[in-house]
């Protein structure tokens, strides 16, 4: 049983590329739900079109990676419009249903034989982000005591966390403006906002598009970081991890998604590493738990930790518990 290993792995998880990418996606989701009250249960759909925008542009069409990024962003905008135009005039549940269904339909579409000439079908696409790694300023790996990051990962982390900070800063500026005040008013009561002359539909659409674009960029970053896309990596579970991250950190706070993502990935890698270490060293008998089950079991424990957090900090780590006590009269 090597605790230094377990802990250093956990810290790597907290700062690694996944944490940055999930934080970025959660910033977009937080704009939707935390600040506008939009029930988006298909955020992974934005990530998917963002990722494939890059992958298809480079691998299939032979375009530059940067053009691919723009294509990914454009696809996120189109997806937001397709989801929003028919549903945003209706009650909130319609958007929820449309987003769940939309994300799944997209996944099946991208993996279908019919789309395979473009998307690579079930095999996906790979090796399209060389342009990104060619710019890598880090020439050697980084070892901080037991903490170790490869030069590749360092570069992805730098880009990822920089984008997280940029996106958070943008959301911060937006939310503190009169525009953000209208969004928060819509979250509280759409009819009241409308009675004061606010074009609620337009504001909801703007929020859906902007949050969707942030999600799309996060998806593009996954594709770039792993140099591969596969439709089945964009499954509904991703959306629910994002919700967990947002609520854990504190929905409708600026730093919530960042803190939430770091804690989430700390817990996930800690438990994974801990269980693997424990089974390998025989602390947990092999007939009780073996290697392959660890991956599944760790999320059971992550869920348990989230449950405890919600009981003791119901508004999330950064959320204001006072807000939850406001009742409807």
């Amino acid at each position, binding site marked *: 049983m090597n605790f230094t290993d377990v802990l250093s792995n956990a810290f790597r998880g907290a700062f690694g590329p996944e944490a940055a990418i999930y934080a970025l996606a959660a910033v977009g989701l937080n704009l939707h739900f935390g600040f506008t009250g939009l029930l988006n249960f298909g955020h992974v759909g934005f990530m998917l079109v963002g990722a494939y925008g890059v992958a298809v542009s480079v691998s299939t069409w032979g375009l530059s990676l940067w053009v691919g990024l723009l294509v990914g962003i454009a696809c996120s905008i189109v997806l937001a419009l397709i989801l929003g135009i028919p549903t945003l005039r209706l009650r909130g549940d319609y958007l929820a249903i449309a987003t769940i269904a939309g994300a799944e339909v997209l996944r099946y579409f991208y993996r279908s034989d019919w789309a395979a000439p473009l998307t690579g079908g079930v095999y996906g696409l790979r090796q399209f982000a060389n342009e990104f790694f060619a710019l890598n300023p880090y020439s050697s790996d980084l070892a901080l005591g037991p903490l170790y990051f490869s030069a590749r990962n360092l570069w992805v982390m730098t880009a990822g966390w920089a984008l997280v900070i940029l996106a958070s800063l943008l959301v911060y500026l937006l939310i503190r*403006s009169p*525009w953000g005040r209208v969004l928060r008013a819509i979250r509280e009561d759409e009819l*009241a906002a409308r*009675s*004061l*002359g606010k074009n609620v539909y337009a504001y909801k659409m*703007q929020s859906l598009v902007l949050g969707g674009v942030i999600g799309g960029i996060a998806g593009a970053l996954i594709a770039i970081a792993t140099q591969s896309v596969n439709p089945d990596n964009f499954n509904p579970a991703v959306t629910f991890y994002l919700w967990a991250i947002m609520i854990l950190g504190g929905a*409708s706070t600026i730093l919530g998604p960042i803190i939430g993502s770091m804690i989430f990935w700390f817990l996930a890698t800690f438990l994974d590493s801990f269980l693997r270490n424990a089974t390998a060293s025989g602390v947990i008998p092999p007939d009780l738990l073996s290697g392959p089950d660890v991956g599944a079991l760790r999320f059971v424990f992550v869920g348990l930790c989230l449950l405890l957090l919600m009981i003791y900090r119901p508004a999330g780590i950064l959320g204001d518990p006072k807000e939850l006590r406001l009742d409807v009269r």
Partner: protein
Amino acid sequence: MSDELINPSLIDAREEIVATEQDSARSEGAKRAAAALAGVAAEPGVAKPDAILVADDVSKSFGGVKAVRVDHLEVQRSTITALIGPNGAGKSTFFNLVSGFDKPDTGTWSFNGTDISGSPAYRIARRGMVRTFQLTKALMRLTTLENVMLGATGQRGERMLNAPLRWVWKGQEKDIEQKADDLIERFRLGHMRDEFAGTMSGGQRKLLEMARAMMVDPTMIMLDEPMAGVNPALVQSLLGHIQQLRDDGMSIVLVEHDMDVIMSISDWIVVFAEGAVIAEGRPDDIRTNEKVIEAYLGKRRALPTSQENEA
């Protein structure tokens, strides 16, 4: 205390005092409104000399219930017009229809001479016709100040592209804050300024909603039971505000159940029953109107008198 209240001579004396107070305190606006409405007959659907809101053939059914069926209704500009009627008479539904919050089955209506039937609610509000809700809609996780500031129209910072550019809207925001603070003081919510609106009491929320609506600078304001749950001392001062607004030229339509309030401040009263306008007139016309008494007390209570007459 209760003996005093029951003593009839005292009540008479009090009413007399109230009556004389009101007579002597009749404002310029009230006189102006009375003069404008002087020649208008007290009958349902009557035309007004200077109507700001004109509704024609507006109807709405919920399943089998005909909630609203207004053949013709005009609201005179710069007056306080009260909508009264028993519970379920269709007053709130009528509000919802003309303010664009609900779609009618039939009907057209115009505001300030422009046909606004079918316009979305936010456009109607921008045109200057603002309404409040019977069930208050405090924006709970916004502070009182934010709630009121939201009402301001034409905010540059409300455009997404301007929003991150603080210097574009900072100056305007300051003016809006100043105006909001004035309104908050006027509605005696100063101590709640930076609290979440969700921490307010029911009556405070009514006040907040009115202050917020005033922030839009409406030409006509439609208040759905603004005094419900507000303490009597504050009701008096609110009535004062409402009269002041009328004196400044604003048109006010208000739904209210308190007859004392209605009779004391209305320039014109419209009576709803079962969705239709059954009577219209000045307070004195309504007080003595048979149909109104019947609508309020029910036919059964009204019948014996007619039987007595026949006997």
